[in-house]
């Protein structure tokens, strides 16, 4: 029996160790967010207090109202939501179709075309945005939702991610489906896509994050006297030029990341599954 108890003890230590490591990791990740929330509830002058306040002495919730109402965050959030949902939906659809083709269909220049898709990952946005802007403007999409979303409806990363997921589907399954009379469309909808759900969720979350946090493109692709501002641009406007605006800007930042937190909570399981997929064979 002593051997078993020793094993149990060492297992217990290992569990304790991993909990300690995870706790430290969580603290590192959460502290900046915690301070953002605390600072959004402080009076401007208390921001510079040393040592920094861990608990606001008298929480000032009115800065949230200011950010939402006079900061017009409600309007910016709507714009961001429409843009982001369009981009996420677009990327999921185009990635599924293209990835399916690369994984299951046979056509000429398949490898070359796939490399071209991958190649788009190597070109930074800074190189293409002036050309994109020119294109979007000449299509008459300047300061429209089309202009905000269309340049991002397809992504090399998504195609790559889903192709890898589709390739994991056993050939036998496809053959069995063919025998059952499934065509490509039905096989994709009934078998391939459901099996690739974790990867789809991961892609959805990543593209949501990227679209929601965009700054440069929405800044440049909108304008005129009634610009179609997104939430990140609205946040920058909240910062303003004076020290008494900082808690308002931080309150705005908290409001802006609420949708992201909700999203992460809902898709947490799929995300973890997709990140660990393939880790254990």
């Amino acid at each position, binding site marked *: 029996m002593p051997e078993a108890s020793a094993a149990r003890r060492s297992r217990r230590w290992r569990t304790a160790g991993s909990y300690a490591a995870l706790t430290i990791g969580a603290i590192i990740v959460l502290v900046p967010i915690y301070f953002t929330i605390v600072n959004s509830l402080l009076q401007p002058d208390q921001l*510079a207090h*040393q040592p920094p306040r861990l608990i606001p002495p008298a929480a000032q919730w009115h800065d949230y109202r200011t950010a939402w109402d006079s900061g017009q965050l409600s309007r910016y959030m709507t714009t961001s939501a429409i843009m982001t949902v369009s981009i996420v939906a677009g990327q999921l659809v185009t990635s599924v179709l293209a990835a399916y083709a690369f994984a299951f269909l046979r056509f000429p220049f398949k490898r070359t075309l796939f490399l071209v898709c991958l190649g788009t990952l190597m070109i930074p946005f800074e190189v293409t945005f002036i050309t994109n802007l020119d294109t979007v403007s000449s299509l008459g999409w300047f300061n429209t939702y089309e202009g905000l979303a269309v340049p991002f409806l397809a992504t090399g990363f998504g195609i790559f991610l889903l192709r890898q997921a589709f390739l994991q589907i056993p050939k036998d399954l496809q053959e069995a489906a063919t025998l059952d009379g499934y065509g490509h469309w039905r096989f994709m909808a009934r078998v391939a896509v459901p099996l690739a759900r974790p990867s789809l969720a991961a892609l959805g979350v990543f593209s949501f994050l990227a679209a929601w946090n965009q700054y440069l493109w929405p800044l*440049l692709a909108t*304008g005129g006297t009634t610009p179609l501002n997104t939430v990140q641009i609205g946040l920058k406007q909240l910062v303003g030029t004076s020290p008494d605006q900082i808690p308002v800007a931080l309150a705005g930042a908290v409001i802006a990341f609420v949708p992201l937190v909700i999203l992460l909570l809902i898709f947490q399981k799929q995300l973890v599954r997709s990140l660990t997929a393939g880790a254990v064979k």
Partner: protein
Amino acid sequence: MKLSRALAQAGAAVIILSGSAVTATALGAMSGTEAGAAAKLPSCNLSALAKHKGVVNITFWNSMTDANGQTLAAITSAFNASQSKVHVTLVSQASYDDTWQKYEAGLTNGQLPDAVQLEDQRTQAAIDTQSFLPVQSCMNAAHYSTSDYLARPLDYWKVDGVQEALPFAVSAPILFYNQLAFTKAGLNPASPPTTLPQMMADAKALKASGSGMGLVLDPWHLETWLASANQLFVNNQNGRKGRATKGVFVTKTAKQIFTDLNTLVRSGDATTNPASGPSEFDNLLGIGSGKYGMTIDSSADLGTVTQVLGQGQYPNVKLGVSAFPVLSSSIKGGIEPGGSGVYISSKVPAIDQAASWVYLSYLCNPQSQATWAAGTGYIPVRKSAATTATITHLWTTDPGYKVAYNEINGGLNDAATSGSVIGPYADVRIDVLDAEESMYTMGVSPTKALAGAQSAVNSTISTYNQRLGVG
């Protein structure tokens, strides 16, 4: 990775992106011709506007938010109501950098304003876009007199003898201090430091009594102290008699400035904070919390600081404001202005250009400048604005507002004190700041840091000039 940028970004725990991506593509596409200046100015067709029937609608891009934005809106509605030829629509961007990025992008897709407010450091970059009508053209056409303007702000936006923009929102660095902290440290609150050596001594005394000095990591420290000692920053008369091609600041004076700043920070008498992100006002807020006894910052912040400190919850603070402590009382120089100028686009119809001139000259007339200064804390750029009831009242009730005006109105007016004109000015300032930070955080010697700053500045300028084909 530039240290300052890394620091600034680390400071910005918020999701806000810094927007510092270099939009050089638009610039790179343009060839630069060195301006042969005054002889071949484009024309400003004021008579077409005079003959025109109906309203000319123009847009003005600005970067004014909060109280500043409200004051600008009030002056603009007064302008719109005062006449029936021109109607101005304001478009506000969140920051000077955003405005500039949008302007550069607009050069590609034609989404450009009729008139735009640009930050001080963009003068040469604006000229290099070849998309502005120098206001000089309209001044000549209107036989406009500039004798009522303060000389230095006017000179700031004058390159090769051509007035490129009108000075509009002009400020200068001033000293903010807590009189009660001075008393506590055994210093005389009625005589704040007037020179850099005195400022260092006072910072030491303040530190010994529990406060100290807040020092925002703003890259204009070196330039301002150089100007205060009448020293040039870049060649060709600070870029005003020909394009600047290199820095000329490896001098005894600059070495003294770097050595003093280094001593100030390394001794702990001064604590630094970044100039952007959520900590950008820590030096000012620290005066309120009692952490600091003094700091240097823009006079444009005076309004807000007075307002915040005046709320009655700071019994230990009595705000004092005085002139920027110059390098030495025995050298005569001047404080260079900062802020922003207003430009007319040459990419819009001639009649819009003329209408823009009418509006911009309204923004800079004595009455508007008085309203502007009283509502924002910027200085009035017109001498006669200083004698209006609005300003005399402001300066009597709150003498702190007069400090920056006196700084800009006094001292020498020459190339050294009217500031520099540099194509990649924003990047040059980052180079200088990186060098300062290498002293503070890595213990690099002031001599080495200064030499490093100059060689970085030289390479930044020559890269830019080569890209434009003028290097």
